[in-house]
């Protein structure tokens, strides 16, 4: 085969230089990524656990292996494939109640659960002069759960790329088939074959403010309906629909002092019709450093989240209200996580190491704290190691 001449190779490359007035560019390289993540929940305080058998205070450990392949097609399209496999083991809380001393405690499933989940997704994007148009499909399967989601998204670049409008829409359909439904009967049997559906919309606007900063504002809306309770909890009766709204701000600033670094500030406001109202603030600093000849990027980050409880959250199992849940995720609490990302680039390969520690407490909510205790709150650490290869 005749070798491509420098004339034709350079002509193609010259045509690919985007003049400032041009828009979104399709990736020009293939990327292969592999990532391993370990999620480990800290044991619960012994005095607040009531295990059914044995005295397991250990909670969930999750191992996740992700594979991703992104490839350009004919300069105008890209195809992004990802597959992830998760294995979960440990015990989970199936309820909380008040003990004889008046203190709340958690009921843990003594038997260790061993489960696995497989997720796969495919996203295609078409690149136009003024923006992008994409569609995606995702499936997720585990022994007691099947989920399928479809989405479309688009971006439109205006005013010489200084303003970008973003929009996306997605729907999902999940089907439940709780394990041991025949053995435990009750909610598990009732949930068997039930499904849940979601519909989500997002509208965003990204604006380049000046040479050193950008701001993105977004509004999201999600409607969930179907079987939204947790069939594994001894008692869990949630409404069969949920409306969620979010408002998010992302600010990026490049600071030229101290040899230059990028600052990221994110804020998210969340509200739903179950009575939950949540605020999340996060911040990170991206800084390139050279350590004994190695060129690294360091990104320490911190995040604070606090929320008000759902109207029907309670740990009083004797409550006879129609709606009831003692799931800690619906309680009032505050959580802080701190972490660090470390990247190392060598030619076409980059390596990423991430570590983070998450701690939560029922007294850390900045507003909306309440008397109800939340004994089941989790603390966890995550560790992640990834490699990306561009070719």
């Amino acid at each position: 085969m005749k070798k491509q001449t420098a004339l034709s190779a350079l002509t193609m490359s010259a045509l690919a230089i985007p003049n400032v007035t041009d828009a979104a560019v399709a990736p020009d390289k293939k990327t292969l990524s592999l990532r391993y993540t370990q999620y480990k929940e800290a044991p619960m305080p012994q005095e607040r656990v009531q295990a059914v058998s044995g005295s397991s205070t250990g909670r969930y450990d999750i191992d996740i292996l992700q594979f991703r392949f992104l490839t350009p097609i004919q300069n105008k399209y890209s195809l992004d494939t990802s597959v992830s496999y998760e294995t979960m083991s440990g015990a989970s809380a199936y309820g909380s109640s008040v003990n004889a001393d008046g203190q709340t405690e958690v009921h843990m499933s003594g038997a260790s659960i061993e489960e696995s989940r497989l997720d796969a997704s495919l996203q295609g994007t078409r690149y136009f002069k003024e923006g992008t148009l994409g569609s995606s499909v995702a499936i997720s399967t585990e022994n007691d759960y099947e989920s399928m989601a479809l989405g479309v998204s688009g971006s439109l670049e205006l005013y010489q790329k200084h303003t970008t409008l973003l929009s996306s829409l997605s729907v999902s359909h999940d089907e439940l088939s709780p394990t041991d439904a025949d053995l435990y009967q009750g909610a598990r049997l009732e949930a068997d074959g039930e499904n849940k559906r979601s519909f989500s919309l997002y509208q965003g606007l990204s604006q380049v403010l000046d040479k050193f900063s950008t701001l993105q504002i977004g509004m999201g809306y999600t409607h969930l309906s179907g079987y939204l309770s947790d069939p594994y909890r001894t008692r869990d009766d949630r409404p069969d629909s949920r409306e969620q709204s979010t408002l998010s701000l992302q600010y990026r600033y490049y600071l030229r002092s101290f040899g230059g670094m990028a600052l990221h500030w994110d804020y998210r406001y969340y509200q739903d019709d179950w009575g939950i109202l949540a605020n999340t603030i996060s911040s990170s600093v991206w800084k390139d450093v050279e350590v004994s000849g190695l060129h690294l990027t360091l990104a320490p980050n911190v995040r604070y989240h606090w929320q008000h409880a759902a109207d029907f959250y309670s740990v009083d199992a004797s409550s006879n209200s129609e709606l009831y849940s003692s799931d800690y995720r619906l309680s009032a609490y505050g959580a802080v996580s701190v972490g660090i990302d470390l990247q190392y680039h060598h030619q076409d390969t980059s390596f990423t190491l991430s570590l983070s520690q998450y701690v939560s407490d029922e007294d850390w909510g900045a507003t909306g704290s309440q008397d109800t205790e939340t004994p089941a709150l989790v603390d966890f650490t995550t560790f992640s190691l990834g490699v990306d290869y561009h070719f």
Partner: protein
Amino acid sequence: MHAGVHEFRAMGSPCSFHVFHENEEKLNKAIALAQQEVIRLEKKYSRFLNDSVLSDINNQAGIQSVQVDSETAGLLNYAALCFEQSDALFDITSGVFRRVWDFKSTRLPEQSAVNEVLQYVGYEKINWNGNSIFLPTHMEIDLGGVVKEYAADCARQVFLENEIHHGLVNLGGDIAVLGEKPDLSPWYVGVRNPQQPQQAIVDIPLTQGAIATSGYYERYMLVDGERYCHIINPMTGWPVRYCATVSVVSPSCLVSGSLATIAMLKQNEAVTWLEEQGAVFFLQNHEAQHFGSFC
């Protein structure tokens, strides 16, 4: 049909636009926009302005990587391909030879000084991942070898977008043609005689595309009757010989310029290499022999 001839100085060279349109107002507006585009690129990639994108990159050498915008990324990808296609001769890190080669003097540098600088040359030593670029300490990049040609292509694009279809853009001898003259005759672009730069040795007719020229008469010094030109072989640190002038015609001024420079760097393999590329060119070597499509 109104004729607009606009002369100005940019990128260290005399520049001119020769353009035609029925509407004088439209013509003047397009000329102003095209000049603005050239000035924009001059500022963005100037070695001399400390706030240019290029200086941002060079100032961070040995300190940290610098994220670049998509246009700069496109030019860096293009420069990477030039390096590859020229078997490592076309090298944007070669600018540091300035530290030892002073063409205003008539003195040759010491070999030890050339060797000292050679260690800071080599595109393969820089880290470019498509988004951000990292230069080792003491290294720098210079896009002087591509920006003037690229600017000629961009200025032509501005005219075409403003519905000007007859004319040419000339940035210091790098020429991009918008279309034939209003009487439909071609533009004749003269290639300078390397021995007598005020005279043309050949006139090349063009109705479209672009032509760029690289020659040993542009910047040089004579030492003991030997000519040392400003195009330096990144492998040896010494100026190239063999080609006196090379002009290449292609659809893009950027591509024409790179092929002409690579041919200079290929020295006595230049003619064979240009022929292998299927390039349309004119080449005169140091013995005043002519090669290419216009002989």
